[in-house]
């Protein structure tokens, strides 16, 4: 393997009588091989899912088509439409208030409104149920005021309920992107609008908002992907979508093919979203103009409006983060003595083990992939990288099915080979081991690790290598003195993001974990499916506190 990291012209291997071989060897250096291998690793589970259409499970499929499919589609449609409108309204209005206007507490709200990112959707979901369900404190309290039949209370386990919960959990994506659009789009455009006779307010609607459209759309697409991929929250609310149906096909019917076919349907929807997303992203690069931001000249809200703005932001912050978090802490305190102990520590240990192992492997792979991209910044490599990082858009349930199938196949192949060679009859090698979980994590979270590393890598211009080499600093010393310091922050961010993502990951762990390997997220799933909100609070608190880490990094980055 040509392990040189610096960009320079390729050495040409002369292979004597076979110039073609020499050329192929020259093309296929270690970097390209690694990128190809990794994208194959991601593409295989997907391919397997699509291939499952070749052997349709007619019985189950017909049953599904008769009873479930229409329901699943309408449910998914209602849910996505509701969550998209909800996050749009909350995200854009809050971004406008904190990004462009001035009102009491604006600075604090500006970062605090990102806090809900720390709360996994399923945690918010079970806290909401715990609070507002029939036996929860709110309804109990209301019943004390008046006889039960006189009080009308909306059904919490409904489309409306889950939409509100997911809106509160996911609006920060729209908020974050819209706010950075408002902050970076520059004052020039607004000044141009004002010079053409617009007031600041009409200028906002005619110029600033349309200019922010690609960012807002990107935020909404993230929300859309998260909504389609969500498993925990919808299963807690007993709201059937594709992800829960895949899980049920797997555990209910014990039919892997049916689960795979359902996954393929979901993947088609997700791919459509990805394609739109890629096009949006290309647009985002061209819209920035002017360096000055609107920071200095905020719109000063006056009179009652400024307090209304502060009130609105506080209500969102309270319902999406503060109240649920306080409730979790109260519940945890209540059951701490019973729950905290050997069993809990064991589960925590499992979570940490998975998270640490996955973090190390994924961060290293991300680093190698970034170097591969730096070494060969060509079209093929871009495609390979895109495939390798595709997993982030794919729902965990889908990936679990795909990876499971691939590894089972590989396993039986391996076992067969071993038997043929040595006569030793192994039952299974990879099947039912930690390997399968880690493999699925790698596919799912590669993008989370790759993006920060790759953007740090972009800062190491090829010139920097050459400057260093011309001064006699090469090889390992170049890596240590130039690359490592520049990459350090990116690697750290990648590690934190992957770590937290793995900690709170639910469906993959649930579906592929070896026997006895319960994690915090799995425990939450089991407890909440029995309605044990209070007992689920202790693992949830651990996840939320861990989830605060990336939010802190994010706010530091955006405020700087």
């Amino acid at each position, binding site marked *: 393997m040509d392990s040189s990291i610096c960009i320079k012209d390729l050495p040409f291997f002369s292979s004597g009588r076979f110039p073609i071989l020499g050329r192929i060897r020259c093309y296929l250096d270690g970097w390209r091989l690694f990128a190809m291998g990794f994208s194959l690793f991601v593409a295989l589970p997907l391919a397997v899912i699509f291939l499952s259409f070749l052997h349709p499970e007619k019985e189950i499929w017909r049953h599904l088509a008769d009873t479930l499919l229409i329901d699943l589609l309408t449910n998914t449609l209602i849910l996505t439409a509701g969550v998209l409108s909800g996050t749009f309204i909350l995200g854009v209005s809050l971004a406008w208030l904190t990004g462009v206007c001035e009102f009491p507490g604006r600075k604090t709200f500006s970062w605090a409104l990102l806090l809900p990112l720390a709360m996994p959707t399923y945690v918010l979901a079970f806290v909401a149920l715990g609070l507002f369900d029939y036996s929860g404190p709110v309804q109990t309290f209301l019943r004390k005021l008046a006889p039960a039949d006189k009080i009308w209370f909306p059904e919490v386990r409904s489309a409306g309920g889950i939409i509100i919960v997911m809106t509160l959990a996911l609006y920060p994506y729209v908020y974050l992107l819209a706010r950075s659009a408002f902050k970076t789009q520059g004052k020039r455009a607004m000044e141009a609008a004002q010079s053409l006779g617009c007031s600041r307010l009409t200028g906002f609607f005619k110029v600033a908002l349309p200019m922010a459209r690609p960012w807002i759309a990107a935020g909404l697409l993230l929300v859309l992907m998260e909504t389609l991929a969500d498993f925990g929250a919808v299963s807690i609310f007993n709201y059937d979508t594709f992800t829960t149906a895949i899980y049920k096909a797997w555990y209910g019917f014990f039919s892997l093919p049916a689960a795979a076919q359902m996954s393929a349907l979901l993947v088609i929807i997700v791919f459509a979203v990805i394609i739109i997303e890629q096009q949006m992203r290309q647009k985002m690069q061209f819209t920035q103009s002017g360096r000055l931001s609107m920071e200095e000249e905020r719109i000063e809200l006056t009179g009652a409006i400024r307090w209304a703005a502060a009130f609105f932001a506080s209500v969102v912050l309270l319902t999406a983060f503060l109240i649920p978090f306080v409730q979790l802490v109260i519940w945890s305190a209540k059951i701490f003595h019973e729950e905290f102990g050997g069993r809990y520590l064991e589960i925590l240990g499992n979570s940490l083990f998975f998270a640490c192992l996955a973090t190390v492997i994924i961060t290293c792979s991300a680093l190698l992939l970034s170097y591969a991209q730096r070494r060969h910044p060509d079209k093929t490599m871009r495609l390979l990288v895109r495939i390798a990082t595709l997993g982030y858009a794919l729902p965990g349930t889908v990936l679990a099915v795909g990876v499971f199938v691939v590894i089972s196949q590989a396993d039986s192949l391996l076992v067969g080979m071993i038997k043929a060679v040595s006569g030793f009859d192994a039952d299974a090698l990879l099947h039912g081991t930690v390997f399968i979980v880690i493999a699925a994590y790698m596919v799912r979270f590669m993008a989370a690790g790759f993006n920060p590393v790759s953007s740090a890598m972009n800062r190491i211009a090829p010139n920097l290598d*050459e400057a260093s080499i*011309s001064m006699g600093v090469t090889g390992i010393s170049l890596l240590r003195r130039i690359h490592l*310091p520049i990459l350090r922050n990116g690697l750290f961010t990648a590690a934190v993001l992957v770590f937290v993502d793995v900690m709170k990951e639910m469906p993959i762990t649930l579906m592929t974990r070896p026997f006895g390997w319960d994690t915090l997220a799995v425990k939450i799933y089991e407890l909440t499916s029995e309605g044990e909100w209070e007992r689920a609070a202790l693992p949830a608190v651990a996840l939320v506190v861990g989830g605060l880490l990336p939010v802190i990094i994010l706010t530091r980055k955006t405020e700087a």
Partner: protein
Amino acid sequence: METVLELRNISKSFDNNPVLKELSFSLKKGYIGCLLGPSGCGKTTALRTIAGFESPDSGEIVINKTVVSNREDGIPPEKRRIGMVFQDYALFPHLSVKENIAFGLHKMRQVAKDKIVAELLELVGLTDVSGHFPHELSGGQQQRVALARALAPRPELLLMDEPFSSLDITLRERLSLEVRDILKASGISAIMVTHNQLEAFAMADVIGVMHDGKLVQWDTAYNLYHRPSSRVVADFVGEGVLLSGKVTGDSQVKTSLGTLVGRFTYPCRNGCPAQVLIRPEDIVHDDNSSFKARIVEKNFRGANILYSLLLPSNEKVLALVPSHHNHKVGQEIGIRPQVDDIILFEQQA
């Protein structure tokens, strides 16, 4: 005087696309050389080949009597004792000004390092900002850090790739003179690359005009302007137009400006059709002259006005006229040619 750098027939192709064709020149010790040419002429590739970041397909490069590159093998860039100033400076973003400058100093006691860095900071006038990071500096300051960093290891040869192109014009002029002074003061030999001839004139002792991968003329600024060896150089360096004419004697050529008499820079056969280079200062404005030309364009330049004139033969010439001779576009003015050295090229069939 000693030769510090010599290129012998350097050729280089990318994907069967020749970028350098048989490049040869040499630079004396302590001199500043410049490769001048439009973008895409191969000048940056030439510089990177000298540095060792590219290897030539054929030919030899000699730095200080050592062959650093030929077909079989080459000395890697880090062993060539060259310093390089990059177009975008390539300062290390995670290191302070001081640390950037000290980066190339190896195997040296800290005290010695500090002394060199302090001297260089003084030399480039950045002592005040020695603790700052590159992103905190202005463009001109960054440029000086890049220069100091490249000079710190006392290279045999300094290479500069479009060193002033990211600066604004006023700064560019001032800094190029400053840099020249610094290089001359420290006795460093240097090769720079630029597309800007004024920069080349200001900085370099000797300039090579490159065109399409070839070095067309390697000469002083004066000779490039007054004795261009080919039409390519005449076109690229300075302003001027080529008039067609016919050689009628040892030192006579007939053009639409009349018969010009003067020394030929290159000998030309009698009766030969030729093209004559007319510089703007070769046309003298004279109200008494009976030879009239119509103004088609005018370009005010402060002390002078550059007029674009249409001759009766429908050819155009440029005339540089003191700016108190202010005429309107469309007006006819009297001119007379004043050409002592006639630069003419034989017309290709």
